[in-house]
Structures are given as C-alpha cells and as structure tokens.
C-alpha cells in the first residue's frame, strides 16, 4: 500500500517488539472485534436459515411482502429495500473518501465526507423506521382465513372507505351521524375482532352500528399460503376476480375474527410476544425484528461514533496527532455495517 515502509522504526513497534503484520494495535483489534461481530450476525442469519428450512409452512416471499413505497402505495417489489441498500453503499463510499482525505492530511476533506456519511446514516435509520412501521401496520387487505380454513394473502387495489353512517345509536354516536375520522383504523380494528357483518355493517366500540360506505376494490387476487385439512386448495393456488371478492368478504363478514393485519404483538401478562403476522410463520416476524433491529442498532451506534470522529476532525485533534487513523478505524466499523446489510438484503429479502 501507499506509504508503506520496509524499515522498522519506533512507530512499528508494539511495546518494544515488532508489531504483528506491521499493523497498528488499534486497527488489528478493530478487525478482531469485527470478526467476532460477524460471527454473531452469521449466527443469526444461519438460525434464520435453520427455521426457514425446517418449517412446513409457506415462507413469505420477499417481493410479495416488501412491495410498497412511501406515498406511492403497492406494486414496487423490493424497490424500497434496494433504495436502503443504495443509501448505505453511498454512505460507505463517502466514508472511504473521508479515509482517503485523511491520508492526504486534508482536514477539510475529512470533515466534508464525514458529514456526508453521518447524513447517509440518518437517512438509512429513517428508512428503517418507515419499513418497521409499514411491517407492523401491514397491508390494507391483510391475511384472510377462508371458509374452508385455508389462509390467503391478498393483492389488489383496496377501494377507499368514505364514511360510516350510524343506523343504530350507541353510547357515543347518534343515529344518522356520519363518521369521517380514523376510518381505516376503525375498519381494520373491527375486522380483526369480527365486528363487521353482512352488507357492510360495522359494530363500533360504543355499541352503535353503522353502514360502511366504501369504493369498490379492483383486481383482487388471493394467494393461498396456508393449507387446511378440510380444503382442496394447495399452497400457491390463486383465486382471482369476482370469486376472490366473494370469498374474501364472506370471511370478513362472518362475524368471527378471520383477518390479520401486519405484525401483531400480544401481551400475555408478563411478556410482549409477537403472536401473529400477515406474512407467514411467527418466526418470520421474530427474525425480521431481531435481525434488522440488531443491524439498525449497529447503524445507530455507528452514526454516534461517526459524529464523535467528525467533532474530533473539526477540532483538529487528528491533525495535531499527525495522522487520521481514528477515521480509518471508525471507517472499518462503518463498512462492516454496510457489509452486514448486503447479506441481510440477500438472505432476508431476495432469496
């Protein structure tokens, strides 16, 4: 590498002896830490692989589960995650440019690129917040259990809910009142509890009954994800058109809880446990939150460390020291975070 010396001087010595691989102590220790951290992440991903291979249930498909963009809705398979990947790659690039500037003792360059890296990190964290929120809230149709006991995920355009007109007064709402607030949330909550009935009647919390005014759904398509013993339907079977609508609403209006939206958390008295999710087996959501959460935690601490280094660079601490190796060591950690995401991206979202 550039600037490499073959001569040994006091700087290449570890407490009087020759340094292993002519590497500074801090850099080598950073590498050892990264190897151990990589083992942790590999362990998590291998555990995910284990569960995925031993399960008999249909595992969720990445492009079906992650196909939304903020403001634009559905129909964009994997684009958002790809964008997150790109953001992280770019911030890795700005980091390596900061390291390069450090090698030239270019203080301004280091500060400029470190700022860019920190911004990239915040962008990624923000994206992850949206992703989690979207995963927890789920799709508009949710996952539906059909009359024969098989389970299906739903694709299509969900007709907008316009209003609820109260036809039977309750504690709070009067007869004839038109409700226009919080419609989607109320609708999904009622659907989950089996409080929507034949003809689009919704039972509200206060005991009143209202008629739902809703635009028509379009292009509905059910894909069977869970087989049942009473059903002839197999995993992967599709139901489309009018038949899909008929089956979906027959279940939704059945008066018993048949639909799941997003990932549900359930309090059993002592623990918070993720119980059901619309995407697939329980473990899928466990691993989603744990792996992306653990990675997100790394990104978060990486951003904090980057900010500290940025402050150090701005104050001229490293310049006075004569070298910017701290930037390099932090850079190793930041690239590692990017590296982990490359694998999470492949094994969680793509494969």
């Amino acid at each position, binding site marked *: 590498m550039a600037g490499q010396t073959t001569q040994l001087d006091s700087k290449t010595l570890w407490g009087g002896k020759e340094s292993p691989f002519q590497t500074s102590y801090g850099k080598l220790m950073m590498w050892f830490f990264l190897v151990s951290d990589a083992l942790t992440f590999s362990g998590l991903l291998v555990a995910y692989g284990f569960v995925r291979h031993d399960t008999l249930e249909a595992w969720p498909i990445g*492009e079906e589960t992650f196909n939304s963009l903020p403001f634009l809705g559905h129909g964009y398979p994997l684009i958002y995650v790809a964008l997150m990947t790109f953001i992280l790659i770019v911030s890795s690039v700005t980091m*390596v440019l900061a390291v390069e500037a*450090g090698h030239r003792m270019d203080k301004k360059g280091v500060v400029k690129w470190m700022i860019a890296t920190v911004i990239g990190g915040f962008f990624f964290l923000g994206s992850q917040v949206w992703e989690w929120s979207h995963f927890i809230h789920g799709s508009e149709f949710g996952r539906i259990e059909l009359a024969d006991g098989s389970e299906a995920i739903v694709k299509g355009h969900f007709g907008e809910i316009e209003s609820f007109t109260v036809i039977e007064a309750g504690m709070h709402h009067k007869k004839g009142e038109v409700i226009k607030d919080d419609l989607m949330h109320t609708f999904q909550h009622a659907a989950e509890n089996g409080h929507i009935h034949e003809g689009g009647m919704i039972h509200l919390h206060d005991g009143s009954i209202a008629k739902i005014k809703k635009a028509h759904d379009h292009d509905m398509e059910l894909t069977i994800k869970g087989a049942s013993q009473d059903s002839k339907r197999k995993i992967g079977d599709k139901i489309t058109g009018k038949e899909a609508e008929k089956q979906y609403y027959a279940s939704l209006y059945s008066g018993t809880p048949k639909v799941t939206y997003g990932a549900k958390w359930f309090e059993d008295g002592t623990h918070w446990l993720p119980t059901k999710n619309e995407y697939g087996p329980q473990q899928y959501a466990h691993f989603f939150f744990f792996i992306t959460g653990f990675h997100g935690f790394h990104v978060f601490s990486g951003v904090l460390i980057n900010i500290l280094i940025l402050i150090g660079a701005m104050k001229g601490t490293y310049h006075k020291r004569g070298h910017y190796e701290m930037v390099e060591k932090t850079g190793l950690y930041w690239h590692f975070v990017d590296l982990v995401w490359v694998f999470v991206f492949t094994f969680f979202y793509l494969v």
Partner: protein
Amino acid sequence: MERDDLIEYSLDTHHSEEQGKQIRSKIVKVTILLTLITVIEVALGAFIKQSSGAWPYVKWTFIVLTLLKAGYIVMVFMHLGDERKWMRNVILIPYAMFILYLIFIALWEALAVGDAWSSVAV
C-alpha cells in the same frame, strides 16, 4: 509522571496527491459496480417468480453476487486487500472455516428436522 510505554502508532496512514487520485478513481469504479450489482439483484427478484423453474439458478446467482459485493467492500473499502497477506489470512480463514461448517451443519439439520415434522404431520 509521563508514561513512556505508550506509543502512538500510525502505519500506512499517508499517501500523496497523485496516489489519492488513483485511489479515488478506484473508489468510483467500485461504487458503480456495487450499484450495478444491486440493480441486477432487484431486477432478477422482481421479474423472476419463486415458482418458476429458473428460480434455483436465480438463488445461486444472488449468493454469488452477494459474495462478490462483500468481496469488494472488504478488499477495497476496508483495505483488507492492501494489508499484509497473513493479516488477511488470519481474519478470513478462521472465519470462513467456522461459518461454512455452521451453515452446513445447521441447514443439514434443518432439513432433517423438517422431514421429521412432515412424517409426523397427518
């Protein structure tokens, strides 16, 4: 009392303007390559369905492309390619040995457990 047993190390921490230019152009090339690989991955994932016959090949393509991406990040961005040969080996060999074994044993077991479940299921 000033300690004389602490030494500030700084190895390979400097290069010239010219070397900097070369390094920057390499960084740009690698950036384009990594972006391209990601675009290819997403396109494959979006257009080829998991139910299609080509899927097993797509899956392996993903894994190969991922390793390629990882290789560029580790070797270029993390400068491991510029370190001494045995430093590289000390980091990569034990890790690779352990993880390949873990992948093999865990997935093999998983398939066996899956078989056991399916033979119990009615």
